[in-house]
């Protein structure tokens, strides 16, 4: 037995050096630590530095203001904070948009929750007819870009306030008032139509994983249905409900496209559009203040969500496999609910996409006659009513934008997927180390930051030359980096969970068999993680193809994307062309989503379908 403790002698220089050499020798065979170290440096620069630079921008004199203010650029100032928070214009710049943003977000979260959870309950627990096809069909609006609905709304309801062709309603003899055409109401409806499937998904999977025996135990002990619902089911579903509300809220706060398209005509400004307006109007200092406000809002919402989830983890993990449970019979209500669910699908998917498609085939929208049909918006060399523009499929600007979208989203997704996999690899290979914690948390940080605020942060850091890094504004590289970093949370989560699931042992087995590091990666780790890696690339690629909030401030005439092209056409009043571009984006997204489903072997609605 050797139970006697012995004192370690104080290490002399020789031992210290030998130990360092020892460590180095280990590193040579095990370069994971070196890879992880490199990731720490890269992520610090790409995640932490931009946010830091932007926070500094709120209290430093901007270059463009230095001449008028008579101050050196970079000197400390409270001017921007004063202007945004306290001055006479602070109402228009910050407080008004903030209040309006909160109103819109609360309304959207409430509608999404009610609609989403009702539909989830119908699909999961009742004998609703057609629930097999409704489960995936009700997810579609969430796959579409969020502003698809705004573009479609404009096609349906726009009035004479905006230039260009009239909307469907106008042509049919009904002139929509401003409150119906633009502003708060349509923004809320459009955002809610986009986000209710999120509540549907979250609530549906929670409902499905709820162990039927929990309810049956209550029943055996003599509880009535309402009591079971109130005392057993609702408390168990509370975390899912909270998540659905908070995450919908935070997504709505950060959404740019819809408030821009539907709010601008009546100057109904939300935080993201105010930020964009200030940036375009040349006051980046105020824009930085707004971005910081948005980031604080976003971080606190997600932090709140994480807090609630942690609070509830004690019993959330209790959820069983679901098991068999009786389907609730709707009886006489069956046709009513069936009609309601079908209506949700029609309004959220068929109507907007149908409107967009019809509009691109009509000379005058809303005039239903054969001689009004046309293919000119798709095929003509010059469109008579949009001077200087050719049909979409031969339009150089659109084709360029499509090519840009493909390669920007493609390279961002590729980088993102690979870095995410390496983050996962490092985190799992160096468990409980400080590096591993740092990587895990910092790679998640971009998730907390609203897209447009993140873009503003990047502009703070990269608009000017700093040290050896040249000014990147206007370059494609900047858009790629921003996109790659913003989607990193998804890729690194995927990477971490894939590597966690695999564990270290397959690689260690290869080590024992005599395979050096590069062979272990090439022969063991990457082949096993092939489909996780593909997924880690494809999902960011899909997000990138429909991204607007993140790129709208970064796109310049040379780096126009399909999504920013939609805004450009909307601004010009070329509504058919913008509709057609939206349809192209939607078609691409559907094709990519189909690939993802083939890859994972399960639909996006698998959790709800069961």
């Amino acid at each position, binding site marked *: 037995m050797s139970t006697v403790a012995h004192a370690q002698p104080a290490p002399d220089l020789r031992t210290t050096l030998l130990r360092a050499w020892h460590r180095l020798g280990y590193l040579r065979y095990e370069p994971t630590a070196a890879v992880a170290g490199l990731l720490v440096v890269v992520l610090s620069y790409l995640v932490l530095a931009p946010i830091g630079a932007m926070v500094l921008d709120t209290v430093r004199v901007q270059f463009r203001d230095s001449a008028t203010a008579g101050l050196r650029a970079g000197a400390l100032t409270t001017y921007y904070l004063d202007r945004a928070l306290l001055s006479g214009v602070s109402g228009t710049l910050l407080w008004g948009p903030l209040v309006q943003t909160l109103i819109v977000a609360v309304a959207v979260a409430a509608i999404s929750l009610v609609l989403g959870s009702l539909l989830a309950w119908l699909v999961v627990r009742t004998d609703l007819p057609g629930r097999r096809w409704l489960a995936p069909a009700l997810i579609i609006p969430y796959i579409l870009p969020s502003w698809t609905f705004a573009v479609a709304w404009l096609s349906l309801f726009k009035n004479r306030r905006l230039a260009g062709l009239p909307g469907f309603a106008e042509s049919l003899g009904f002139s929509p008032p401003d409150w119906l055409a633009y502003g708060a109401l349509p923004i809320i409806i459009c955002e809610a139509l986009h986000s209710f499937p999120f509540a549907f998904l979250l609530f549906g999977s929670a409902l499905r994983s709820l162990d039927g025996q929990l309810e049956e135990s209550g029943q055996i002990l003599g509880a009535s249905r309402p009591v079971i619902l109130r005392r057993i089911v609702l408390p168990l579903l509370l975390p899912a409900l909270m998540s659905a509300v908070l995450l919908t809220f935070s997504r709505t706060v950060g959404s740019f496209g819809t408030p821009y398209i539907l709010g601008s005509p009546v100057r109904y400004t939300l935080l993201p559009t105010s930020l964009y307006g200030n940036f375009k109007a040349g006051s980046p200092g105020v824009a930085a203040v707004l971005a910081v406000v948005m980031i604080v809002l976003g971080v606190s919402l997600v932090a709140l969500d994480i807090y609630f989830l942690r609070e509830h983890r004690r019993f959330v993990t209790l959820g069983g496999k679901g098991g068999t449970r009786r389907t609730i019979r709707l009886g006489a209500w069956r046709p009513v609910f069936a009609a309601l669910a079908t209506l949700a699908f029609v309004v959220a998917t068929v109507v907007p996409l149908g409107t967009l498609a019809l509009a691109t085939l009509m000379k005058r929208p809303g005039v239903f006659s054969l001689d009004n049909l046309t293919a000119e918006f798709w095929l003509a060399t010059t469109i008579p009513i949009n001077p200087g523009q050719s049909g979409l499929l031969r339009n150089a600007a659109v084709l360029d934008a499509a090519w840009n979208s493909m390669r920007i989203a493609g390279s961002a997704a590729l980088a993102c997927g690979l870095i995410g996999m390496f983050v996962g690899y490092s985190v799992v290979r160096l468990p409980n180390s400080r590096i591993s914690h740092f990587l895990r948390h910092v790679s998640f940080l971009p998730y907390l930051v609203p897209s447009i605020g993140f873009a503003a942060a990047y502009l703070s850091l990269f608009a000017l030359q700093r040290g050896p890094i040249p000014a990147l504004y206007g370059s494609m590289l900047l858009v790629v980096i921003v996109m790659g970093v913003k989607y990193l949370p998804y890729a690194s989560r995927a990477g971490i969970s894939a590597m966690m699931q695999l564990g270290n042992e*397959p690689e260690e*087995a290869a*080590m024992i068999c005599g395979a050096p590091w590069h062979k272990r990666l090439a022969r063991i780790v990457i082949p096993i993680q092939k489909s996780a890696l593909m997924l880690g690339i494809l999902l960011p690629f899909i997000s990138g193809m429909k991204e607007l909030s993140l790129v709208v401030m970064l796109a310049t005439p040379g780096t126009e994307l399909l999504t920013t092209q939609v805004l450009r056409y909307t601004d010009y009043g070329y509504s058919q062309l913008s509709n057609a571009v939206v349809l192209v984006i939607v078609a691409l997204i559907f094709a990519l989503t189909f690939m993802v489903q083939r890859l994972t072997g399960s639909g996006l609605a698998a959790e709800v379908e069961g």
Partner: protein
Amino acid sequence: MPQIQLERVSKRFGQSVLAVDDLSLVFPSGHFVCLLGPSGCGKSTTLRMVAGLELPTSGEIRMDGRVLSSGSSGRFVPPEKRGMGLVFQSYALWPHMTVAQNISFGLEMRGWKPDQRRQRVRELQELLRIGGLEERYPLQLSGGQQQRVALARMLAVNPDVLLLDEPLSNLDARLRLEMRAELKRLHEQLGNTIIFVTHDQLEAMTIATEIAVMHEGRLQQFAPPLEVYRQPANLFVAEFVGSPSMNLFSLDEAADASLARSMLASLGLESDRHTRVKTIGLRPEAIRIMVGETYQQDVAWSSPATVETILPTGAEWIVRLQVCESVAFARMVEEPCFGSQASVAIAVDPADVHLFDLEGVRLASATPGAGARLAG
């Protein structure tokens, strides 16, 4: 076959966790040594340090004369250069490779030609009785087959040292027994040095040539299985090895004291004032249960007892007894002729009594008197 030597090896995780604490141990050449202990005792960490998957915080690990890793000389041989074999608890078969590809991977790393590899894979399939599976993927195999493939993969390169990390714990009881026999057969046939980690004391007892019992990162006892069972070095080993575990009666426990005192008195160890005895241990099979006429006068110590409950396992009967104020388990190989609540007498042979001191260390012979009787 090489011998593996650990000298004052410690392993720390972070600042607080001391997984292995100043461990010195020799794994003799060609022996089959089990590292036995509860989860978290540092046995797997020790194995992983031998394999080179973990770096010792201090101390030296040698294979014959060759230093594998050392805190003072700065030498470290990476796992891929140690030429050992390691079978994981999860098997860690590569799911994207067929059985044949899994087995020949190590050979490929050593630069074997394809036809040589094919020949060697066939040999291993024969050795481990997994013929006809070469084109299957690991997920298409049963647990027992996966286990054999994992072994074949490591044996393919003919390692002098084979490390096994709880390789049988994912198998069902029947397969586990079969694989134990298989491992013992392989060891007798190939003669490599084997280090086998397990928390299952029965497994260690049945296959090892020596058992190293570990607890809280420290070595408790290193001895052949029967010695570990018959002469446990301390209370921890006594309690950990054997099922049901050894009955322990502490002189400091109010409920046990009267029983322990009467046992000590009949052994000639009047009271704890004259000895260093703090705890008395009795294996369940050492307790003889007697009813009425079978009562014998020539036993050293006996006491009345009440049967609380009887647990038949098929081959034997475990009897829970109330003795004085203590509870004891006895094991019988014959069907009991009494039921629960029966009043019986129990008897113990002095040679079967284990004594432990204040630190829980085994006392070979506490006093001359007891020594003579214990030896007798």
